[in-house]
């Protein structure tokens, strides 16, 4: 079974690029969600995922809120969550990792390296910076 990644971002373009990049260059099976709510729904319905790539700034349930929901109760399957964020200050990065994310990937990302970055985070174990 190929690795499955859930890409959560409110921007259609970015979902499309991430899908293309991860499918073509990384051989992932990509499922996308355009909001936190949809992500929670998909995790309930289509789990398990190898990793969730979660945008931080989204209308409605944002990245950290969505992470909290995915980490609570029955939904918490321990699936690693990687934040995708335009906030790249070391302080922001530490804050996001402090929330329990496996890693943080900065926007804009290089689509040729996205899959590689994701693999590195998953290989290095929880909480460590890629």
């Amino acid at each position, binding site marked *: 079974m190929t690795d499955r990644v859930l890409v959560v971002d409110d*921007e259609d*373009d*970015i979902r499309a*690029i*991430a899908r*293309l*990049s991860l499918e*073509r*260059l990384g051989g992932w099976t990509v499922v996308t969600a355009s909001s936190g709510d949809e992500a929670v729904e998909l995790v309930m319905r289509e789990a398990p995922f190898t990793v969730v790539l979660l945008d931080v*700034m989204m209308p409605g349930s944002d990245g950290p809120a969505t992470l909290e929901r995915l980490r609570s109760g029955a939904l918490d399957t321990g699936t690693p969550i990687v934040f995708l964020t*335009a*906030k*790249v*200050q*070391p*302080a922001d990065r*530490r804050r996001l990792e402090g929330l329990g994310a496996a890693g943080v990937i900065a*926007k*804009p*990302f*290089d*689509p*040729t390296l996205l899959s590689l970055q994701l693999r590195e985070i998953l290989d290095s174990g929880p909480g460590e910076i890629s």
Partner: protein
Amino acid sequence: MSGDELAVGYEPMTQRALELAAAPAQAASDPTGSELLHRITRVAGALFDVPMVAVTVIAPDGHEVKSGMGLPSGEPLEPSGLHTATLAGEGTLAIADAAGDARFAHDPWVTGPSRVRFYAGHPLHSADGERIGTLSILDPQPRRVPSERLARLEDLALWTQEELGRAARTEALNYLRRSRSWLRTIMDSIAEAVVSFNDTGTIHFANAAAEAAFGAEQDGLLHQSIVTLIDGIEWEWVAARLGILAHADKTVIGERLELSGRRLDGELFPLEVVITEAQANGEAVFTAIGRDLTERNRAQAALRKSDNRFRAIFEGAGTGIAVTALDGRLLEVNPTFAEMLGYSIEELLKLHPARLIDDPKSRADYEPLLKSLLNSGRSRYRREVQLRRRDGSELWVAATVSALPGSEEGEVLGLVMVADISRRKEIERFKDEFVSVVGHELRTPLTSIRGSLGLIDAGMVGAISAEASQMIRVAISNTDRLVRLINDTLDTERMEAGRSELELTAVSGASLVQQSLAVVQATADAAEITVRCELADVHVWADADRIVQTLVNLLGNAIKFSPRGAEIQVVVRDDGKRADFVVSDHGRGIPPDQVENVFERFRQVDASDAREKGGTGLGLAIARGIVEQHGGRIWAESGPGAGTTFQFTLPLADQQTTLAPGDVLVVEDDVEAATALREALEGRYGPTRVAHSAEEAIAAIRQSPPRIIVLDLVLPGADGMAVIDDIRDDPVLAATPIIIYSGAELDSGERELAQLGHTVFLSKANSSPERVARRVAQLLGGPVSRT
């Protein structure tokens, strides 16, 4: 004794006496007139051909010889019966032979050395008829003088009387003259004009000040009428009010009058006068004491003018100005102040200004702030406050509060000046929003652009021509550059806004360099640059990410500006006090006049660098910001063609600080704020002491010196400056690091005053207690452990 024996030839004696009497008077220069008396005695001696002549006067203890001829000298003259009898009698007393006269046979003059036998004396009278002495002629030979001859003695007595009276008058006149001169001297030393006049208004005295005031020469006012010195006043008017005229009231005596004085040349001047009345020798004497008010009026006018000028400035100033009492009540506000707040001036004067302040903390601070400002020696406070207008809308002002001397001695008022900074605040808010929007909103489309380009470039969407591929690469590199520019801009903004926090740890200098090299390795390899390292084993107290960012920036620059195949050098040194990081290249160098400028924003040596080298113009500004935030220093050394050396310093981490309970002292009067600070600090540094006033703080410091102080400047009673002043003189305590954590914005002068050992200023508006806690470790200069 026969009559012949007693007879004398008189003609020659008379001739001789006339000559003596007509001789040039030597007495002209003799103020007492005794020379004239001597002339009389000589004339008498010649006229009567007697060897002895005496002019005696009644003295308190007997008789005194005023002038004598042929009298034994050096012998006390005893009271003589001859003398007394002369005084008691009428006319001339003549005794032909005193020894043969029972009344006088034992008189001391008769029995004494003078051996007087003949005596003739005539009483002397003063001008008012009192007997004052005698003129007598004496001879040891008895003789008889015819009565018509003795009448000459009476003439001589009258002459003597005249002379004595004249001498007495001269003496009295001299005394009068002397006392006049004293009076004049005293009067002339008085600054006020003193003029006295009689009941006809005629001036009989004026002192120098009066002469000067009225433009007269010495004695130039004498005999003038007093009314010539006053404009627009008739003597009748004065006389009526001085009580000179019958049925008149003395309405002006003792009153302070403001009149128009007239100088002798006709010039008028303001004059203040008080007239007093006295009686001298039964005559009314009026004395006017006056002062020329020209100078005073001129000074008052100047003061009024300057007052008016300041009033106009106050009224017309574009800045809001208020004068407040110590309790904060507004005493005076200018129209701009009222206009800014939408109240009328009258309304503002009635309401307590704390009601105008929006923020509760600032409101609570208002009164203590004023008081501490006025109690301390500081000149002024400046802070930014949010006020509320009458209509409820908000208004940001920069308020400067300074002490203003009040009208009473020792009274102090507050001078508050407020400038409307709403627009600036709005721009700041807009900038903050803009920056955060840039962060997200610009990056999102850039993510799509960069992503799409990357996928095309990677051939994910089909093969493209070589030219297309080249264009795609151009698009990618410029997209990356745009992203860097955004990142650097955000970084700079964050640092300037003080929102950039350091995570300080002890970290190896070598590892920082190695992490940085890893980032730039690919770029260096591409340019065939070799990096030579000399890395001392040193640990610094730093935020690793930020220092790596700095080193990457410096290394990136060095690589960019080095010729292909060159070598760059990285050195980390430990000089015992701090660590030095040095990055040198052999590039084209920086012109000396620009070495300082390279750290400024958008200051590239060559404007084309930004395009060619792909820089943002912000890298070195950020590097400086980061190093300075660490308490280090960064600089460049270079010359054209000589390559460039960038160097920065960081604090060493090997001085471990161990804190005992109470080593951290918080001075904060606000209970809530103090609790928040204590909680934040105790989480990291263990039990923390809290003082709620300057007095408590000083006592706590004396009891046990803290290692670090967190100090609020605005305290009830003595303020935070009092704490600093108190420990400044102690060489050990003065080195205590201190965090000034205050609501008030301090200007540079105040910051200098508040400087102790290592001093950091954090404003309550921008820094949380958590941040204060983090800065404590930074200030202590190394990792902190607890005992």
